[in-house]
């Protein structure tokens, strides 16, 4: 399955090559033109019959991860995070370091040896290290270098009621949806853009939008999902299994209300369940896209992902399928010239 391949590939921000190569292999036969720009964004164009307004659909390829900063005398690796990672989720996780995917474990002092006051605080980044099983600095340097990226090692697993657990669902789920669209859609013109370095500040999207200069853009994302039985509904950003989440406003965009309502109408008339992304926190490539050059209108459609930015994110296959249906319906309307 494509999503398995995508999530099990490494592509920490600034180091997206493995994911990009995989995507290129998938879409090459289905695009009328493809280029990789100087930052590493993929910009593919599908030529169809309509050509009135320029539509760009985007998904970012990168994921949060780690970067090696030092190798100590015993061969343990020190690191910093790339993108927003909760340091409390790091201890005892498996990682792949560098191009050769050297296996490592994030280690820390065992609980038996911690002082009582250490129990109550999360371990600081300085107390963590990656253990690749090296016996010395010299030994470690045979396998890894300072500046190497590390990504979480986490298998794609289907479980429960149509759920998937994997790393990097944010945003390989968007990549997978976009690849599906490129393969399926015929006779409708659009730009498909896979961006780099979203997780470190929407870096790739600006130059990509500058190049494409769209009239409208759809940003595909995996987004926050958190629902506990006793929570007020307005504090749940999204809920799993309730369909694609349509964004209202976040830190980087107040989404164009007319465009959003049009998307909702399309969902309703095709009996596709949808929900709103209720949190105004976070942001995505839309922020750079809608303010590029003389501006464009944007919408963001997301698959809810629990435990996002961790090695074990969880999403629903049904949400994926409903997002796919919604995108097909939107493109059909766009093809008719009535988006």
């Amino acid at each position: 399955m494509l999503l398995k391949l995508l999530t099990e590939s490494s592509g920490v921000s600034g180091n997206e090559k493995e994911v990009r190569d995989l995507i290129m292999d998938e879409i090459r036969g289905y695009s009328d033109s493809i280029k990789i720009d100087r930052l590493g964004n993929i910009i593919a164009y599908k030529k169809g019959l309509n050509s009135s307004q320029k539509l760009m659909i985007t998904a970012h390829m990168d994921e949060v991860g780690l970067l090696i900063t030092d190798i100590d005398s015993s061969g343990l690796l020190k690191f910093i995070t790339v993108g927003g990672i909760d340091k409390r989720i790091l201890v005892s996780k498996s990682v792949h370091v560098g191009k050769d995917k050297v296996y490592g474990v994030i280690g820390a002092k065992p609980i038996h040896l911690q002082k009582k006051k250490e129990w109550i605080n999360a371990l600081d980044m300085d107390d963590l290290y990656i253990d690749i099983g090296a016996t010395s600095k010299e030994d470690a340097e045979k396998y890894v270098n300072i500046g190497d990226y590390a990504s979480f090692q986490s298998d794609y697993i289907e479980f429960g009621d149509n759920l998937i657990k994997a790393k990097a669902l944010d945003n390989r789920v968007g990549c997978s949806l976009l690849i599906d669209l490129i393969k399926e859609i015929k006779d409708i013109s659009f730009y498909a853009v896979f961006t780099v370095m979203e997780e470190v500040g929407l870096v790739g999207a600006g130059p990509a939008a500058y190049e494409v200069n769209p009239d409208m853009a759809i940003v595909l994302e995996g987004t926050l999902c958190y629902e506990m039985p006793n929570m007020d509904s307005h504090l749940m950003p999204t809920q799993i299994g309730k369909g694609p989440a349509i964004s209202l406003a976040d830190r980087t965009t107040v989404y164009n209300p007319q465009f959003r309502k049009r998307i909702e109408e399309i969902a309703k008339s095709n009996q596709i369940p949808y929900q709103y992304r209720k949190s105004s926190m976070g942001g995505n490539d839309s922020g750079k896209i809608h303010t590029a050059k003389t501006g464009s209108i944007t919408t963001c459609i997301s698959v809810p992902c629990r435990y996002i930015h961790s090695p074990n994110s969880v999403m629903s296959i049904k949400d994926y399928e409903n997002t796919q249906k919604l995108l097909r319906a939107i493109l059909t309307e766009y093809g008719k010239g009535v988006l």
Partner: protein
Amino acid sequence: MNFNSKLLKDLVKTYGPSSNENDIRDFIIKEIENYVDEIKIDALGNLVAHKKGNGKKIMISSHMDQIGLMVIDIDKSGFLRFVNIGGISPYVTLSQKVLFENGTVGVVYSEPVDDMSKLKLENMYIDIGAFSKEEAEKMVNIGDICIYYNGFDENDNIVFTPYLDDRVGCFIAIESIKAIDTPKNDLFFVFSVQEEVGLRGAKTAAYGVNPDVGIALDVTSHGDTPKAKKYAIGLDKGAAIKVKDNSIICHPKVREQLVKIAKENNIPYQMEVLEFGGTDSGAIHLTKEGVPSGVISIPTRYVHSTIEMASKKDITNCKELLVRFLNSNLELF
């Protein structure tokens, strides 16, 4: 003093929160269409009014959007939950009336709080007097944005009303458009969108206009009330010429030209060094190869509250300074 209170009152009362500026844009178009050569609206909704002249291309930006509350949830009893659009204080918002685009009025209150210093927007709600979700949904949809609903008041000295930020800037721009007959310079008056959420409209407008010089018109804070934080700006002390804020260090030549013109024409002015905040010039001056930019600020008390207050004399002086600046010889660079 000839002060067009009616225009300012109409401006502050017209609906137009960030991303939903249709009503205010239509209102401004009607006000200015007979006084400009060309009107354009860009993808984000910026209104760009061109008054042709032969000199430098100047972009004058006043933002027409307002801060507001966006509905994100309607519960089964018909109460609305919201997030802020722009800088909304929970303390200012508690027990305010709010107005939706379709005329629906609501009030804002909070769940019981023991410690008022812990008041948060996420614990507050809008009550529109609906008794069920279904009833509420007839009046309001998720994604709708409401604005503060409060009166305009004035005396001989001052006006106080919500949304002087930045309808007073729009007011000055409109009055200037009407006052300038034959422009010496090539003037692009931009009524920008989405300033309150991060100078977003000015960014795309400036890209489209590609000006030689940028000027923003916006409110600034005050330091002249009891125990106010030290800040050398006060009401009725003249137009404020910005030196810096968090979005820009104003171009010295633009700033000096404004000071020179104020001095030559006996327009009272004060220098503004703001340690926080930002305005459209912050986006304009970084456009393309860069645009020398400055700001004329209107000293305003209680910014982002429902009782923003400014001096009529200051407003008139800001307009006077702008008109003279726009008609000056700008061979600065």
